[in-house]
């Protein structure tokens, strides 16, 4: 699937990762839920038939001239494979309703995972494989893998794990060793299935939740090692979505073998001045306030403002600041895509 520009989507994204100026500003939208609704589908249907989901992504790729497709959303894939009970809702992403490790002793219940056999993982890999076959080598497939700290929090319950940090730090590290193995195994399987970019998010490890000191001790080393392994295994890039406030630890994220940081609460221009020697920034048209709740005019204004701040000098991917909400008016996404198309070409002409 060739793009209309001089570069393919894959080359365009790799160019910004390699500190080169691409032919135009890459455009990505985390669009799983929105794409499913846009195709007239429900989540549960996409968990039954991978082709329905693949086609929903292909439609967005074509209509909005995006530079990548995303796997179906299943944050607890590893948790389920390790033994936790996962609920698949009619029209929402799956979740784990109860912590699996109610007591610290329950750690012995955790099973090593085989991504090709356990839980929902084989289905996830099938979706990624079909996406890759559909888009070919020129368009990146982006697939999500949980960082070890997040999976540990989900299995134990975040509040329990936060207290374990004080009560029994050895338990926390033992659990992180286990989730590191499982998350890395799943990430490698995603790469084997055809994922070009591994994305992640870690909302339980931001400044709204834990201190930098705890992040350095319990999240950073595990994520750094996992992403290093995934890149050695063939992942072309790592994309880290930072939910919430990360101001005091962006430097640590940059040092975690991450190539692209997907930010919400930052000024793109300021962020680039501080970090663009180390990392590509992606974002950050406000997905709720502007895309979901705003007018087309507000979407146009904010998209242009983001391009003006982010695009000069490259190292930038235009996007929303988080996932495009399911119920977003497609006209707002069209308005964003139209502004991107008008101003995306290098050399820039605002």
């Amino acid at each position, binding site marked *: 699937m060739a793009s209309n520009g001089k570069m393919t989507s894959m080359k365009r994204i790799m160019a910004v990762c390699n500190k080169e100026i691409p032919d135009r500003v890459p455009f990505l939208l985390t669009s799983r839920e929105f794409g499913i609704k846009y195709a007239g589908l429900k989540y549960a249907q996409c968990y039954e038939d991978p082709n329905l989901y693949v086609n929903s992504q292909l439609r967005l790729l074509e209509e909005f001239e995006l530079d990548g497709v995303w796997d179906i959303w299943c944050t607890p894939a590893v948790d389920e494979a390790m033994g936790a009970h996962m609920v698949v809702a009619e029209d929402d992403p799956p979740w784990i309703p109860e912590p699996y490790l109610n007591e610290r002793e329950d750690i012995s219940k955790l099973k090593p995972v085989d991504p090709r056999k356990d839980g929902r993982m084989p289905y996830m890999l099938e979706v990624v494989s079909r996406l890759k076959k559909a888009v070919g080598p020129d368009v990146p497939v982006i697939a999500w893998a949980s960082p070890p700290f997040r999976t540990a929090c989900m299995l134990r319950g975040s509040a329990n794990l*936060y207290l374990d940090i*004080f009560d029994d730090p050895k338990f926390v590290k033992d659990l992180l060793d286990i989730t590191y193995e499982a998350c890395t195994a799943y990430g490698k399987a995603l790469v084997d299935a055809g994922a070009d970019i591994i994305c992640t998010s870690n*909302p339980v490890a931001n400044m709204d939740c*834990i201190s930098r000191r*705890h992040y350095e001790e319990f999240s950073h080393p595990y994520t750094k090692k996992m992403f290093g392994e995934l890149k050695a295994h063939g992942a072309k890039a790592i994309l880290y979505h930072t939910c*919430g406030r990360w101001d*005091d630890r962006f430097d640590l994220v940059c040092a975690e073998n991450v190539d692209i940081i997907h930010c919400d609460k930052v000024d793109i221009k300021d962020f680039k001045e501080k970090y663009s020697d180390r990392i590509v920034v992606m974002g950050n048209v406000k997905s709720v306030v502007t895309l*979901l709740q705003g007018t087309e005019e507000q979407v146009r204004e904010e998209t242009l403002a983001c391009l003006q701040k982010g695009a000069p000098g490259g190292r930038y991917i235009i996007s929303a600041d988080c996932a495009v909400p399911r119920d977003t008016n497609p006209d707002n996404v069209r308005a964003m895509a139209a502004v991107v198309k008008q101003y995306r070409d290098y050399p820039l002409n605002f």
Partner: protein
Amino acid sequence: MAVELQEIAKALIAGSQDQVRQLVGEALKEGVAPQEILQKGLIAGMDEVGRRFKANEMFVPEVLLCARAMHAGMDVLKPVMVEGAQGNKEKVVIGTVKGDLHDIGKNLVIMMLEGAGFKVIDLGMNVSPEKFLEVFEAEKPAVIGMSAMLTTTMQAMRDTIALFEKQGQRHKVKFLVGGAPVTAEFANKIGADGYGADAGEALELVKEFTLGRSA
């Protein structure tokens, strides 16, 4: 040597439940009034915790630790406190809205409110508009707090307020909303009385809403 009530606050801020339990017990033995221990020891400690949390000097794990210490102290105090002397008796009903199973933020708000002496009725997660109404009618709280983490579920906040309007109960209670995708603009649009960006702001708003009401 008499127990200094600020030592209780200090032990609470340090997150030491054993020390808080011990100091509260000693203060009681020395004849200090339970209400005084509560106000100048436990609540004073949690006020400082709230300040440090807002200033990014403390984070969720530390606040959880302090809240656990506060509860340890309360467990010692409660049996000897006369009815009506357990601090501010204003009730706050709180829950994560229908379809949503996130509760870290909600629980943090609960800790701050309890730390400030409010009586909190936690409805847990996945709370329907009908459930909020049912509990409101039974408990008559001054404030209802609603939390949502998802763009899809935040719409349930609107449905809840609309149900209260329909039943003629809206004017009897203040609605406070919060959660990652929620904004002040959204809160305003759905007719909520306030939006708390974090647990500290939520506490300030509840204090503001209940100011001057009979405790």
